[in-house]
């Protein structure tokens, strides 16, 4: 069983890294023919960095759009981040001081995820507009994430897992020498679901995570009159030898 789950996890991580890496490389390579930031946009790169930061950390646009979606979405993502960070305690020996510091917050992170996901699922089921735009995969994605967060919480509060053995397994996994996995069905489910999430990441809407950094509506500087943005595939660009190519292609 340990071998099987280790293999699955390795495969999932490989698919995740390679698949997402290729996607990112493709986003980076694809030209941005025109300047299309959603205005008003910042006039400097520093301003754009700040705009992106507000989007990534605070979900600024979503806040403007819908308070409930913002609340549930932000709770879920904040919980996810915190949960990921607290999980570092399984992979570090000795545990980094700041990981030890936040470790007690782990269960709250899990709960925030569950509350956020339930809220999002509720909206998807109850708001007719959102239900209309939902494909089966949109519901399954929420259930998958709920399964991950829920199984984590179950191990914490209901079916306790052998933490020492688990840490041995995690350290082994990180060192490419997997040890014995503690015999727990819930843990197996937790890990299998995580593997599934990693597997589908590069092929699903989870690409919004890397995608948003490449979104021209958000990452471009408003300076089209000052700096000539060159479209590399413009039929004219062959004639434009003297043009300012040092300008920015993309941001």
């Amino acid at each position: 069983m340990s071998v099987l789950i280790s293999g699955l996890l390795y495969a999932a991580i490989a698919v995740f890294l390679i698949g997402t890496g290729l996607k990112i490389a493709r986003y980076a390579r694809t030209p941005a023919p025109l300047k299309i930031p959603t205005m008003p946009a910042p006039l400097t790169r520093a301003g754009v960095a700040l705009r992106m930061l507000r989007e990534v950390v605070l979900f600024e646009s979503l806040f403007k759009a819908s308070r409930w979606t913002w609340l549930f979405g932000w709770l879920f993502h904040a919980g996810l981040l915190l949960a990921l960070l607290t999980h570092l305690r399984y992979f570090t020996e000795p545990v980094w001081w700041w990981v030890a510091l936040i470790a007690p917050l782990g269960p709250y992170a899990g709960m925030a995820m569950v509350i956020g996901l339930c809220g999002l699922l509720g909206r998807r089921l109850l708001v007719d507009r959102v239900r209309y735009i939902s494909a089966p995969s949109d519901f399954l994605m929420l259930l998958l994430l709920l399964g991950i967060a829920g199984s984590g919480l179950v191990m914490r509060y209901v079916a306790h897992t052998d933490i020492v053995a688990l840490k041995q397994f995690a350290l082994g996994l990180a060192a490419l020498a997997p040890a014995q996995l503690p015999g727990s069905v819930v843990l197996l489910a937790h890990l299998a679901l995580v593997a599934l999430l990693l597997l589908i990441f590069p092929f699903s809407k989870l690409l919004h995570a890397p995608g948003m950094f490449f979104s021209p509506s958000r990452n471009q500087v408003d300076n089209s009159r000052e700096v000539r943005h060159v479209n590399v595939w413009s039929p004219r660009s062959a004639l434009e030898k003297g043009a300012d190519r040092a300008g920015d292609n993309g941001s």
Partner: protein
Amino acid sequence: MAAKKPEFETPVIDHDQLVPALARGALQHSQPFVAKPEIQEGIGFPGELVDNWQRVAVDKLGELVGKSRGLQVYLDSCVKCGACTDKCHYFLGTGDPNNMPVARQDLLRKVYRRYYTLPGKYLPWLVGAQDMTEEVLDEWYRYFHQCSQCRRCSVYCPYGIDTAEVSMAAREIMDTVGKGQKYCNEIIGKVHKLGNNLGLPEPALADTLEGLEEDVEEETGVSVAFPLDVKGADVLLVTPSADFFAEPHIDGLIGYAKVFHQAGLSWTISSHASEAANFGLFIGSYDNMQKVALRIREAALELGVKRIVFGECGHAWRVAYSFLNTLAGPFDFLDPRYPVPQHIIEVTHDLMKRGALTLDAEANDDKRVTFHDSCNVARASRMGNHAGGQFSLPREVISSVCNHYYDMPANTIGEATFCCGGGGGLLTDDLVELRVKGAMPRMQAFSEVTERHGITHLAAICAICKSQFSKVLPYYGFEMDQVVSVHQLVGDALQLGSPE
């Protein structure tokens, strides 16, 4: 279809601004006239549906995704959060679920998923992927011509997904397989041939301008010039051709001329580039957009001007401000002391600040005015030297020439502005129902400010907005002549005779 006058009900204005319940297929019947073969061929597209059009469409989609990072990121990243679902004026005015921005994108996304993503290839039912079929093409034709490319949805999307880009791509694909829209494509053909959307030839234009000179002299006693093709003028004015003949546009043109006159600026219109509009944008055709834009460069070179100034037009200002440098630059042959191009509002604003204009706001005391932010000015370009200048400059200009100015509710102006309902190549009589219904959110805001402040006039800085409002205001119980050009207000307040 062509003969029958559309029967429909104008939406009722409800100030509680409820989001409508879904009304499936409510505007399924709305579609614009299809372009005839000669129109299509005139702008470089096949005359009618090509044989293996499914394949051609899918290939074209792949090509476009490979050429535009934005399109690719937008198609991949939507999480179906629903944040955009109640942001589109066409949805708010019709309740048709396909007018929710994300649902509109999905019409194209489902095909992208089917042919270009792994789950779509093997598990199409799971992710809502679909083959490129005749029904899909038909849906595209209807609903991608129910998007005015106003970008309001992109403001609220957590990833800035811009449905305008998606609908431009869809229209480009449809043109490529031979199914184009008559209104846009016919107009683009005219620009290529005659230099403007109206197909107004040079002698007719010269006549019109001469007539305007006479009218203004008669009315004010001052001889204000409307120069055409004057070599060596300082400023090339590029303005929408509606400014030459349509009401209330023409009063805006008179306003620009008065401003130039009093500031003592030498300026000219070009018969080669007698059109600011660039409908190449609406159909997502880079080639056509570039060809239209290059006329302006050619005119500037030929006339030897120092500056390029654009008149009041929303999408034209987007193409000018955001794209002209890319499409037709570099403009290093122009006077480097001025941005290229400039908006007429920027010119007037600057002259006002320097005290170069003698204004008497009392001339507009019979009016109580509000201002409509055009979507392409608000969300796709800028004025002045700070972010948001596109909102403050026009308001400062209006407030300097008008004693009674009031904004519409905050969630309907600025970056949140509602489209007039006629942008994006939809300003055609075959789409009147769509235009009337899509104007509902703007009319709702206008009626609110009218009730509160006794507003009499709706000022606009876009040729399309002005024509659209003239058409739809009466449907909502207003008068068509309540729309004014911002530069009409300026022109009326300018004291021409006074010493400089």
